[in-house]
């Protein structure tokens, strides 16, 4: 207790030092006076008495000093002294200070920026209560050879699971829909989730206003209610509370608004569901799922997304075991030819962010390397400066400064540099976050929520401290080993120069090695990106597409509607072809069908990508005809079922046969044979990075929900405007959504790759720049130190070229060593990169060679300036200055 009090008193004493000092001086004076008087009473003279009093005191100054030490906390005082002294010396050499600070600021800024992404995406918890207990439930069926996450449980299975399982505290089923939302005369397409009564309680999310959807709302007749998002509340109702008395018109049906969710709750997002549809960016409206009694017992066709919250103490493995047991029983209730349904319980957080985890760690690793290089440079600068300050420091040691004090002094200076750099680095990171929306590939969850919050700032402070220690420790150790006698004998300016440059050269070699690793990695990513960009998509990128959904009013008149719409669209001057399809290529939606080919040894679970198209679709998308003929308007009227397949389909199922006239069955139960009339080119449907799968196109011109594709000579924007107004004249309640060119879809498909490649290239460029600055600095430093040596060499007959080569050779040795070590490092480091590469080997020789050439050329250029300076040394002057 007394100790704590004493610490507080001493801490306060630090701020009141002056007044305490005066007070004590007075006390001491009174002490001496009392003692003197006492002595005089004993018969001594005043002078003698006072002398004796001082002797007995043990010296006035010594007493004052020991009192002072007890009074405050001496280490704070010396820290302040060090800081003041450090600031003064740093101010004295602004060139050095600015270079060191900016170098570190680049490294720390890059680290902070990437860490803010890691923080937003991976560390910050999801706003759904304890998100670590949320799980997705899937019912994979191995006979389809498809990713397990495609299979949400059928509704009948879902309700049985809900009834029988004991592992889950809450369990919910939901589905997604796109609606035309009528607002102020116009209509827009919005993403909605249709949810059961347990959806919001499973996510432990409460509304900001009103209430959420309950089980009662899911009863037929009570289901025309809607909960809206914060964003929609703001844009449609200007955030007014009376929104709860308003309603929404979705596809022409009115829904009473019952609640508003808080900002941040827009689940499900595009990137949340492992195989979600790309149309759904964020959810703006939640309405009741309101299943019909038929849907509730449907075990084969309709299925949902299922999310559950584990009971406290139940592990995923336990839930998995229970669900597997239940599904094993339920599987027997399915129709025999479809059986094989299993169970999969997957961690919600992992499945939301798992796919970007490795990317973010990769980026963090890359900026870590940048930071190391920056540290190396700053350490080199400090070393060089310590060498030129050897005299000052030596004198301080000679005057009795403790070595610890000197080390502390140098570390304080490094700390000042590191913390300033940290502050500037936060500025860099802020700029980066301002640019982030332009870099955002759109499929990294919550990337845009990245911000400089407390955790990020603490991270930055930590990194700055670590950086300061890393950069300060080498020079501090070096200086602390000053040999006093040697220093005094040599007047201290040349004695340790050799040893210095050895440490500095090692740092430069290591920096170059790290740069090689980064350059090789980004080189491989660039090659991969170029490869992806040059993939033949199979369609024209200028085709304009849009999404259109028809509501129930059109259920009997879809064919007529589309016929009318297409006729009007084709009449727009400049429009060349108009077609429609159920799912666009690269839209992240896939329709697969099982089929049999006549005359082929068909296997169970044979799948092809299926598309329902209008006859003009191929022309609108510029998909080339390879054999046979396209579909025509006449085929619509005809009675036969026709199909078009792609080249991959032909290669696999019509090998060595003429596909034209071949027959394909697409329905297991009621054979439904389609005659192949044409073969078209392969189209990249699901990904640019996977080779095209077999594809079947079937004719359909009456889809309730489809994409329209228009090929024209018009600008995308003006075409979109004409299409909108055409649609408006037909029916003002209909809206087209997602108007974009196929090029936009390709660009979206490569966005992630562009993001990772450009970031890594930028980091590699920063690293290269820093390493070159470091190399330049070291060469310039060693030339300035060797002025005398060069002077002697030249006086002895060395030519300017010899001197030039001398410097360049040294630089070449450093870069060469760095390259060698770096290549070994890159050999292992690029293994980590393997999953990020496309169409290029991880040890791609072209990349490796370019990296070597780039570093060699840049390195020699950086060394050339100091080399020329060395060559221009005037020997007479050089010899005279020493």
């Amino acid at each position, binding site marked *: 207790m007394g100790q704590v009090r*004493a610490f507080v008193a001493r801490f306060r*004493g630090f701020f009141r030092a002056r007044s305490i000092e005066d007070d004590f001086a007075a006390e001491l004076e*009174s002490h001496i006076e009392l003692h003197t*008087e006492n002595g005089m009473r004993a018969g001594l003279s005043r002078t003698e008495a006072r002398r004796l009093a001082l002797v007995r005191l*043990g010296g006035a100054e010594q007493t004052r000093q020991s009192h002072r030490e*007890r009074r405050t906390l001496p280490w704070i005082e010396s820290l302040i002294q060090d800081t003041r002294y450090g600031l003064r010396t740093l101010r004295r050499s602004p060139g050095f200070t600015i270079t060191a600070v900016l170098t570190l600021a680049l490294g720390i800024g890059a680290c902070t920026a990437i860490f803010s992404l890691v923080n937003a995406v991976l560390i910050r918890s999801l706003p759904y209560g304890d998100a670590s207990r949320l799980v997705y439930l899937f019912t994979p069926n191995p006979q389809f050879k498809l990713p397990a996450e495609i299979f949400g449980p059928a509704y009948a299975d879902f309700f049985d699971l809900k009834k029988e399982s004991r592992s889950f505290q809450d369990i919910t089923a939901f589905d997604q829909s796109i609606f035309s939302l009528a607002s102020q005369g116009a209509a827009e397409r919005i993403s909605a989730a249709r949810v059961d009564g347990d959806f919001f309680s499973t996510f432990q999310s409460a509304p900001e206003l009103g209430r959420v959807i309950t089980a009662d709302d899911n009863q037929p007749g009570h289901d025309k209610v809607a909960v809206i998002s914060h964003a929609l509340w703001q844009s449609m109702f200007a955030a007014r509370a009376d929104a709860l008395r308003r309603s929404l018109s979705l596809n022409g049906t009115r829904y009473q608004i019952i609640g508003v969710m808080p900002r941040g709750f827009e689940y499900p997002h595009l990137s949340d569901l492992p195989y979600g549809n790309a149309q759904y960016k964020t959810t703006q409206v939640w309405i009741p799922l309101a299943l019909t009694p038929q849907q509730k017992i449907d075990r084969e066709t309709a299925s949902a997304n299922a999310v559950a919250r584990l009971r406290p103490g139940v592990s995923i493995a336990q839930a998995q075991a229970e669900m597997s047991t239940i599904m094993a029983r339920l599987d027997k209730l399915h129709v025999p030819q479809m059986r094989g349904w299993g169970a999969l319980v997957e961690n919600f957080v992992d499945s939301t962010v798992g796919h970007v985890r490795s990317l973010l760690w990769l980026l963090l690793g890359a900026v870590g390397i940048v930071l190391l290089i920056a540290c190396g440079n700053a350490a080199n600068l400090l070393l060089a400066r310590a060498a030129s300050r050897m005299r000052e420091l030596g004198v301080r040691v000679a005057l009795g400064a403790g070595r610890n004090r000197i080390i502390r002094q140098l570390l304080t200076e490094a700390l000042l540099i590191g913390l300033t750099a940290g502050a500037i680095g936060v500025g860099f990171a802020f700029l980066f976050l301002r640019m982030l929306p332009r870099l955002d590939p759109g499929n990294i969850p919550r990337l845009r929520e990245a911000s400089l919050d407390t955790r990020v700032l603490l991270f930055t402070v930590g990194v700055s401290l670590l950086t300061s220690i890393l950069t300060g420790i080498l020079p501090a150790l070096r200086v602390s080993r000053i040999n006093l006698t040697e220093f005094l004998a040599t007047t201290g300016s040349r004695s340790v120069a050799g040893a210095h440059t050895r440490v500095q050269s090692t740092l430069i070699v290591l920096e170059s090695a790290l740069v090689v690793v980064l350059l090789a990695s980004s080189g491989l990513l660039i090659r991969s990106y170029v490869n992806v960009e040059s993939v033949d998509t199979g369609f024209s990128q200028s085709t304009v597409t849009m999404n259109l959904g028809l509501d129930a009013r059109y259920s009997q008149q879809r064919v007529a509607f589309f016929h009318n719409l297409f006729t009007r669209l084709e009449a727009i001057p400049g429009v060349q072809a108009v077609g429609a399809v159920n799912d666009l290529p690269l839209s992240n939606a896939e329709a697969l069908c099982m089929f049999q080919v006549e005359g082929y040894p068909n296997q169970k679970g044979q799948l092809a990508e299926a598309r329902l198209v209008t006859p003009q679709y191929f022309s609108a998308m510029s998909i080339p005809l390879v054999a046979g003929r396209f579909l025509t308007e006449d085929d619509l009227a005809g009675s036969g079922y026709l199909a078009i397949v792609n080249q991959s389909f032909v290669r696999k199922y019509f090998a060595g046969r003429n596909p034209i006239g071949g027959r394909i069955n697409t329905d297991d139960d009621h054979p439904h044979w389609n005659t192949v009339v044409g073969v078209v080119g392969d189209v990249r449907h699901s990904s640019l990075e996977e080779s095209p799968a077999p594809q079947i196109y079937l004719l359909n011109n009456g889809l309730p929900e489809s994409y329209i594709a228009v090929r024209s000579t018009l600008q995308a924007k003006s075409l979109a405007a004409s299409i909108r107004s055409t649609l408006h004249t037909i029916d003002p309640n209909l809206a087209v959504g997602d108007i974009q060119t196929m090029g936009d879809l390709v660009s979206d498909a490569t966005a992630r790759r562009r993001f990772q490649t450009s970031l890594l290239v930028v980091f590699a460029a920063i690293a290269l720049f820093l390493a070159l600055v470091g190399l330049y600095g070291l060469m310039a430093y060693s030339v300035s130190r060797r002025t005398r040596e060069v002077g002697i060499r030249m006086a002895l007959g060395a030519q300017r070229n010899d001197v030039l080569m001398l410097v360049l050779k040294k630089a070449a040795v450093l870069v060469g060593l760095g390259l060698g070590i770096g290549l070994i490092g890159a050999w292992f480091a690029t293994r980590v990169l393997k999953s990020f590469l496309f169409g290029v080997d991880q040890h791609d020789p072209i990349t490796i060679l370019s990296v070597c050439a780039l570093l060699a050329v840049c390195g020699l250029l950086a060394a050339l300036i100091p080399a020329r300076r060395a060559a221009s040394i005037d020997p007479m002057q050089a010899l005279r200055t020493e």
Partner: protein
Amino acid sequence: MGDKTDVWQGTLALMVLRTLESMGPQHGYGLARRIEQTSGDLLQLNYGTLYPALLKLEQEGFISSAWGTSENNRKAKFYELTKAGRRQLKKAAAEWNQTTAILARFLTTAEGA
């Protein structure tokens, strides 16, 4: 070096507290003289060491100080025992007694053997 001072400071603190208890408020010089006298002039105190000890006790809250006037009309700083100081004195005195008692036993046994 540090250890020695601490031990010395510990005992010096105890002497100061005890002296203040028996004499009441006292200034630094008076304390020093009194301690010397009490020790029968066996203890040759370096008066300067007294002040850091006084400061420490004050920081710990065992004594308090105030400026006053001495018996012969000099301005001097007077130290006074606080409540916490009295408690501390009791505690420290008990500990010290115990320590000396134990040590005394050791020394007598060693002599006896």
